[in-house]
C-alpha cells in the first residue's frame, strides 16, 4: 500500500488570457482585441501573424505533464530539477493549494506543507502568539502546540524574547522561530520546499539534523531544494523533473547526476576546441587539442558546476596528426582570473610527469583533489609541447565558472573579499611556542 499515489498529474497554466462568464469581462476582451487590432494595423501582415502565433503558444504552459509516481510510507524523496521544471507546481498540488488540470493524487494521513516558513507570521504579535498562530495555520491543534511550546522555544533559542513582538526580532531570530514551529509539526506526510535555504550555516545544520530525525520517525517527506548536498544527505530516492516531465525516478545519486548533466548547457562542463581556427592557435599542429571536460567528484558526466574544495578532474582530449609516436610530451593548462592574472599553471613538465609516448587520438587526465580557487570566472589557456617544439597552444580556450564551495568542510568561509584561493592547512596548539629558529632571540617562551 502506498501512502501517496500520483497518477498522470497534469497542470496547464493559461497566461495572458482569462476566461469567465462575466459579461463585463467579455466586453472588456472584445475592446482589448479591437485595441490590439488597431495597434497592430501599421505592422506588416506577416509580422502580425507571427506575433499572434507566438502569443497563442505562450498562452498555455504545461507546468506538469502526465507525472506519475508512488511513495511508500517512511520514504524521503528529493524532487529536483532546474527552475521552471514543475517542482513547485507539484508541491502546490500535493499541498492542495492549487488544483490539477487532470490526473489524481491519493494520499493517506495528515499532510503538512512547508512551502515557506513563517507563513502567516504577524509582525505585531509576540513570539508566543505567533507560535500559536503559525502552528494553527500549519494545521496543528491547540493542545499540540501547547504540548510542544517549550520545545519550540528551545529549538529556536529565543526564550528571552518570547513575549516580544516579532517585528523587534533580528532576521535570524525570526527565521529560527519560524523553522522551529515547522520542525515540530506532527504529520504523516511532510512536504518541504527550499526552506533549508535560510538562516546561517550553523542553523541550517541544526535544521538538517531535525529533518533527519523526522525522516527516521517513519514520516514520509517530499523535499524540494537546490542544495544538492542536503538532498544527497537526506533522501534515498530522487525524482527529476524537466519541463514538467518526470525524467527520472530512482536512486538519489543517479538523480543528482542526471540533474547535473541536464543542467550542463551547450558550453558548460565541456569546452569544445576543435572548431577553433588555426589563426587562434599557435604551434605546428602535430597534436591538436580538441576538447576539455570537467568532472566534479568523480561523476561520469561533465559538470557545469566546478565547485571550490571539491575534487576536479580535467580531461584534455587531443588528435594526433603525426604518423610516428611523439616522445616526452608536455601538457599544460593555465587559469586566468577576471583581472587577467595567471593565477595558476598546471603542467606535466613541472611534475616530471611528461607522457613518454603519444600515438593516435586520446586524452589525458589532470586530477585535483581539492580544487583551491575561489568562486568566479576564469579563462583558460591550454597547450601541448615538447622541449623543442610547440604542437598546439590555445591562448583563449574559453572560460569556466567556479562555484563557491565548502573548502574547509566546516560550512564556513572567509568573507568574499578576503579570499582568492584556499590553502589546505592545519592548526595545532602546542602550549609552548615551538622555537622554530633557535638563533632568533625574538622567539622566546
Amino acid at each position, binding site marked *: *500500500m502506498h501512502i501517496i499515489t500520483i497518477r498522470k498529474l497534469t497542470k496547464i497554466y493559461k497566461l495572458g488570457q*482569462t476566461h*469567465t462568464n462575466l459579461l463585463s469581462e467579455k466586453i472588456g476582451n472584445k475592446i482589448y482585441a479591437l485595441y490590439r487590432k488597431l495597434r497592430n494595423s501599421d505592422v506588416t501582415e506577416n509580422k502580425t501573424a507571427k506575433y499572434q502565433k507566438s502569443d497563442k503558444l505562450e498562452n498555455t504552459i504545461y507546468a506538469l505533464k502526465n507525472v506519475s509516481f508512488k511513495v511508500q510510507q517512511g520514504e524521503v524523496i528529493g524532487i529536483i530539477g532546474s527552475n521552471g521544471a514543475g517542482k513547485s507546481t507539484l508541491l502546490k498540488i*500535493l499541498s492542495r493549494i492549487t*488544483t490539477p488540470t487532470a490526473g489524481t*493524487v491519493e*494520499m493517506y494521513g*495528515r499532510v503538512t506543507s512547508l512551502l515557506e516558513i513563517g507563513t502567516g507570521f504577524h509582525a505585531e*504579535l509576540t513570539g508566543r502568539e505567533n507560535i500559536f498562530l503559525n502552528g494553527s*495555520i500549519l494545521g496543528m491543534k491547540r493542545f499540540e502546540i501547547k504540548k510542544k511550546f517549550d520545545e519550540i522555544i528551545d529549538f529556536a533559542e529565543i526564550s528571552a524574547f518570547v513575549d516580544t513582538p516579532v517585528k523587534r526580532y533580528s532576521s535570524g531570530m525570526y527565521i529560527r522561530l519560524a523553522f522551529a514551529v515547522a520542525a515540530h509539526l506532527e504529520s504523516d506526510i511532510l512536504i518541504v520546499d527550499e526552506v533549508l535555504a535560510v538562516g546561517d550555516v550553523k542553523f541550517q545544520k541544526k535544521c538538517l539534523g531535525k529533518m533527519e530525525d523526522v525522516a527516521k520517525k517513519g514520516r514520509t517527506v517530499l523535499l524540494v531544494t537546490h542544495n544538492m548536498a542536503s538532498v544527497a544527505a537526506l533522501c534515498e530516492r530522487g525524482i527529476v523533473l524537466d519541463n514538467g516531465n518526470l525524467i527520472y525516478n530512482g536512486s538519489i545519486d543517479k538523480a543528482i547526476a542526471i540533474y547535473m548533466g541536464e543542467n550542463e548547457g551547450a558550453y558548460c562542463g565541456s569546452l569544445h576546441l576543435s572548431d577553433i581556427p588555426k589563426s587562434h592557435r599557435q604551434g605546428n599542429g602535430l597534436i591538436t587539442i580538441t576538447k576539455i571536460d570537467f568532472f566534479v567528484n568523480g561523476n561520469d558526466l561533465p559538470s557545469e558546476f566546478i565547485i571550490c574544495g571539491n575534487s576536479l578532474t580535467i580531461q584534455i582530449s587531443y588528435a594526433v596528426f603525426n604518423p610516428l609516436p611523439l616522445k616526452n610530451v608536455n601538457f599544460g593548462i593555465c587559469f586566468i582570473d577576471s583581472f587577467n592574472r595567471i593565477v595558476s599553471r598546471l603542467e606535466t613538465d613541472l611534475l616530471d610527469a611528461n607522457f613518454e609516448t603519444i600515438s593516435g587520438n586520446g586524452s589525458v587526465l589532470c586530477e585535483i583533489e581539492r580544487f583551491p580557487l575561489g568562486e568566479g570566472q576564469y579563462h583558460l589557456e591550454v597547450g601541448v609541447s615538447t622541449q623543442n617544439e610547440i604542437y598546439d597552444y590555445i591562448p583563449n580556450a574559453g572560460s569556466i565558472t567556479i562555484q563557491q564551495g565548502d573548502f574547509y568542510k566546516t560550512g564556513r568561509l572567509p568573507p568574499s573579499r578576503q579570499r582568492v584561493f584556499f590553502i589546505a592547512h592545519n592548526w595545532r596548539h602546542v602550549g609552548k611556542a615551538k622555537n622554530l629558529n633557535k638563533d632568533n632571540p625574538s622567539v622566546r617562551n
Partner: protein
Amino acid sequence: MTISMNTAQETNPCSHRKKILIKAPSSMFKLNISEIWEYRELLSMFVWRDIAVRYKQSLIGIGWAVIQPVMTMIIFSLIFGYLAKLPSEGIPYPIYTFCALLPWNYFARSLTDSSDSLVSSANLVTKVYFPRLILPLSKVLAGFIDFTIAFVILLALMVWYQIAPSYGIFLLPAFMLIAILTAFGIGLWLTALNVKYRDIKFVVPFITQLWMYTSPVAYSTSLIPEKWQWLYGLNPMVGVIEGFRWALLSKGAPDPVMMSVSTVIVLIILVGGIYYFRKTEQTFSDII
C-alpha cells in the same frame, strides 16, 4: 478542488488514516460545511488575530472602538439633527442615530474587511491549504468586538435618556443575524471578485457610502414616500435598523412584509455568494 474525506475501506496499513483525494475540479458544487467545522480552530485563531492586531501600537488602543461611533453620532447629531432638523420620531436624535449606527458600523466594517480578506492574505492563500471561506468569515466575526463595545455605550445612552427597550429586544439577535449574513454574503461576492479584479478595492468605499445613504441611519424611514416603501425594503439593512430601533427604543415595529422581503433578499445574496465563492475558490491561488 474536491476533497473527499471518507475512510478507506480496504485493509491496509493506511486504513486508519484519513484519505485525501485530489483531482481536477468538477463542475459539481459542493458546500462541504463539515470541512469548515474541521478548521474551526484556525477560524478562531484568525478572529483572535484580527482582534489582537486591530488596535496594537495605537495610543488609545481599544478606546477607538468607543471614539469612532461616538464621534459619528456627534457629527450626525449636529448636521442632520441640529442643522438639517431631520425628524427622529420623538426620540432624542443622538440616541436615535446611534441605535442605527450600531448595526450599520458593524455591517460596513465587516463588508469592507471581508471583501479585502483574500487579497490581504495572499501569502497564506498561495502557501497553505485551508477552506478559503474561513477568511471572510473570520472578518465578519471579528467585527463583534467593536459591536459589543458600542452596544455598551448604547445601553449607557439609554439610561441617560431614560428610554426602555420594547419586548422586541428578544428579536435583536435575529436582526443582528440579518446584518451578519448580509455582510457575509456581499463580502463573499466582493472578495472572490477582488481576487481577479482589483477594481473592487476602489468600488467598496462607494458601495458602503451609497448603502449608508439608502439606509435609515441618519434619517427616519418615514421620510420615504409610502408607495416606495416596498422598494426601500429590498435593502436588508433597512429592516435591520428599523428592528434595532423598535427593539431598543420602543419605536413602531418594522413592517413584517418588508422584513420578509429583506430576509429573502439576504438569503439569495448569501447562497449566490457561497456558490460563486466555492466555484472560483480553486483558481484563487493561481490568479491572486
